[in-house]
């Protein structure tokens, strides 16, 4: 490859594709390199829920800014990207969870996010297949869903259109400006960005990123069975506890009438095999909220690996004085959502373009509490 690139992005998942796309939009000639198909990796396995989250101020800012960027992109994306503003419904099983929902409502209201508290009756009307007797819930009105692999492909086409390129190869090592490929080839660029998802630490060993396995199943078509992305409020406890294994109810209506049901979280499992035990657990959990779901047919189950960090925030940016790539990894269960914000931040760091995001919160040099770093 004789052409000199301004930037090389490692990884063709949603984070790598977003970074490549954002950089090329700002005039850089970008080479995107990956060893899996476009949109493969965790991106292919994930649910595609674009969710504004309130679990920390930093997570809120990144998800909210990303949601804005998704909204702006909405009309540019091809129809196969299947963007749908179905909203999220957080389900409160009891009074305690309903109070939590009200607290969240206040948080979101203060920050200009459209939300609505539902009581027992209104949640039953909103989602007739939920069991009766639930305390209520919180609707996040502008949350959406998208089919990520198609977005990845579209982004890389844009990159190519702007003079960039895509290369399928495994990267064996990388510095800030150089990349070595499996066949021995060495590539130079102005800067290298690592968006390798859960296996990023294979290239940069200090990264405190651990694979966290998840299981999902997809149903046959049942149009109208569920209308919003449904998530139990208990999900937050699960996502943030670092227990070895947990499961939370999470259901997504696809535009085809199919539904995606998740999800589990497991540390310490390396094989991607579908574990019957975990699938059973995911389904049992769902039946607690939607008893009728038991009779629906599943056409397939699969797994994926999230890139988990100790503080549940992604790692975005480079470390000063260390000759290693600029990082864009560690997005755990929100990388589809936060890919666009991440890319904006990377572009800002590398080109000085404006962003409202505060890089310090996601910095590679932050204190990970004894994990990684120096």
């Amino acid at each position, binding site marked *: 490859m004789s052409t000199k690139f301004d930037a090389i992005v490692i990884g063709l998942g949603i984070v790598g594709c977003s970074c490549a796309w954002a950089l090329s939009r700002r005039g850089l000639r970008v080479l995107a390199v990956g060893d899996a*198909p*476009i*949109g*493969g990796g965790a991106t*292919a396995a994930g649910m595609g829920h674009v969710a504004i989250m309130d679990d920390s101020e930093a997570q809120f800012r990144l998800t909210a800014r990303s949601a804005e960027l998704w909204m702006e992109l909405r009309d540019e994306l091809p129809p*196969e990207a299947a963007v749908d503003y179905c909203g999220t419904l957080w389900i409160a099983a009891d009074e305690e969870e309903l109070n939590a929902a009200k607290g969240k409502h206040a948080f979101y209201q203060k920050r200009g996010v459209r939300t609505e508290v539902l009581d027992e009756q209104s949640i039953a009307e909103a989602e007739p297949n939920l069991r009766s007797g639930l305390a209520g819930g919180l609707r996040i009105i502008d949350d959406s869903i998208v*089919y990520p*692999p*198609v977005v990845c*492909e579209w982004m890389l086409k844009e990159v190519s259109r702007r003079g960039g390129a895509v290369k*399928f190869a495994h990267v064996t090592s990388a510095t800030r400006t150089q990349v070595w490929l499996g066949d021995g080839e060495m590539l130079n660029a102005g800067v290298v960005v690592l968006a390798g998802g859960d296996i990023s630490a294979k290239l940069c060993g200090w990264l405190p990123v651990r694979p966290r396995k998840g299981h999902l*199943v*997809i*149903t*046959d*078509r049942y149009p109208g069975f569920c209308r919003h992305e449904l998530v139990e409020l208990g999900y937050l406890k699960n996502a943030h506890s670092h227990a070895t294994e947990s499961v939370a109810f999470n259901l997504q209506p696809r535009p*085809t009438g199919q539904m995606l*049901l998740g999800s589990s979280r497991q540390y310490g499992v390396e094989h991607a095999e*579908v574990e*019957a*035990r*975990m*699938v*059973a*657990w995911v*389904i*049992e959990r*769902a*039946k607690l909220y939607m008893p009728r*779901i*038991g*009779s*629906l*047919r*599943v*056409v*397939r*189950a*699969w797994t994926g690996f999230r890139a988990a960090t100790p503080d549940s925030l992604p790692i975005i940016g480079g470390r000063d004085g260390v000759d290693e790539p600029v990082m864009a990894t560690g997005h755990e269960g929100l990388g589809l959502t936060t890919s666009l914000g991440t890319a904006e931040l990377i572009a800002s760091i590398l080109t000085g373009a404006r962003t409202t995001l505060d890089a310090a919160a996601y910095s590679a040099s932050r204190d990970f509490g004894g994990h990684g770093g120096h």
Partner: protein
Amino acid sequence: MRAERAQIAVVGAGPAGIAAAVAARSCGAQVLLLDDNPDVGGQVWRRVQSGAAGGWRERVKQSGAEIRSGVTVFDAARIGGRVLLRCESAAGARVIDAERVVLATGARELFLPFPGWTLPGVFGVGGLQALVKNGLDVRGKRIVVGGSGPLLLAVAAYLSERGAKIELIAEQAEKSRMLGFAGAMVRQPGKIWQGAKLRASIIDVEYRFGAWIAEARGDDRVRQAVMNDGRVIEVDAIACGYGLVGNTQLAQVVGADVVHQASAKGKDSRDGKSQKRTDLSTGVSYGRVVVDDVMRTSVEGVLCAGEPLGIGGVETSLVEGTMAGYTAASRDDLARGLIPRRRRERAFAEALERAFALREDVLCLARPETIVCRCEDVTMARIAACDHWRGAKLLTRCGMGPCQGRVCGAAVEAMMGWAVRDVRPPVFPVSMNALAATGGATEAE
């Protein structure tokens, strides 16, 4: 859920599974025979009571094997030295924990997309035969039967016996290719799926080599079949099939080795960015389960027989089933005695495969706007823009619908030369309840 113990579980009650059950029982083993149809017999003996079919049916019923019909095995796993089968039936879900398992899961049809194939009235050959066996009335209906292989004749004969008017049987292979094959037929006349008898019952029907259906035309349903030479035939239905593809999904899920060869030139087509349309004119072979000379797969305790090893027809399935049954019952010595017979059957099957190898023309019938994946409405143009099966799945959702690529996967493999091998459980759609109920079981009581 507590798993149910079995010494030998046989999945599939076609000729291969029936023979396996009978052989294993004859050695005194305890046998459970599972099949998703209402009765034993598999594809070829479905609702057939006479002749060999009747004989084997009787034999298996007398054998003392426990027969369970209407049971779908949707997952298989090797755990703790045993093989677990996860099953669903109208009665509910079950886990069977077997010492040994024989996979005799048979084959399905290869359907290659052509313009108009999604019109109502266009069927797979075997599909239409099954519908008629289940009561569909074809009396007086004008039908063109097209595609490839001896099944065309079998089905045309069957339909004509049921009162259909067969307008034409279009075989894509050239007549010259049949010469060696005809020799084989002369030596072993009973072979070509009851060939001789079949020809007699459809003696007046035009049987053309080097002919294929290029397009189906119609409004709300099919009205015309357009042949490759431009001839237009008025029809009420089209039955089309390009041969068979072995059902290797369960074997793949349990982890057995499967070889994929996209072309008879011996080129292994891996998932990669490499080849598009390779030279397939010499024939396409799909995934085949690898077994040793007594039917053992690469997974201990799991045996395989019949069509998943490569399309072989009834006789091959019977021999291999018998061998697998013996081996499963630890009588490899008996199985070994059948090795020469199996070799002969397989040689015949390979001759058959060569004779009916698919020509490039029938792999290129789909136009850019022709639907290839019916579940997800994916067109040929969108698939052709991709580099490999996984990419096509990700970007177009081809093969991601309810059939999970059972139909379009083989067609895409044939047309694009890609290896299609990403099977995950459940191998058949199954209720959430069944998955939940069977997921916990890891050991028997």
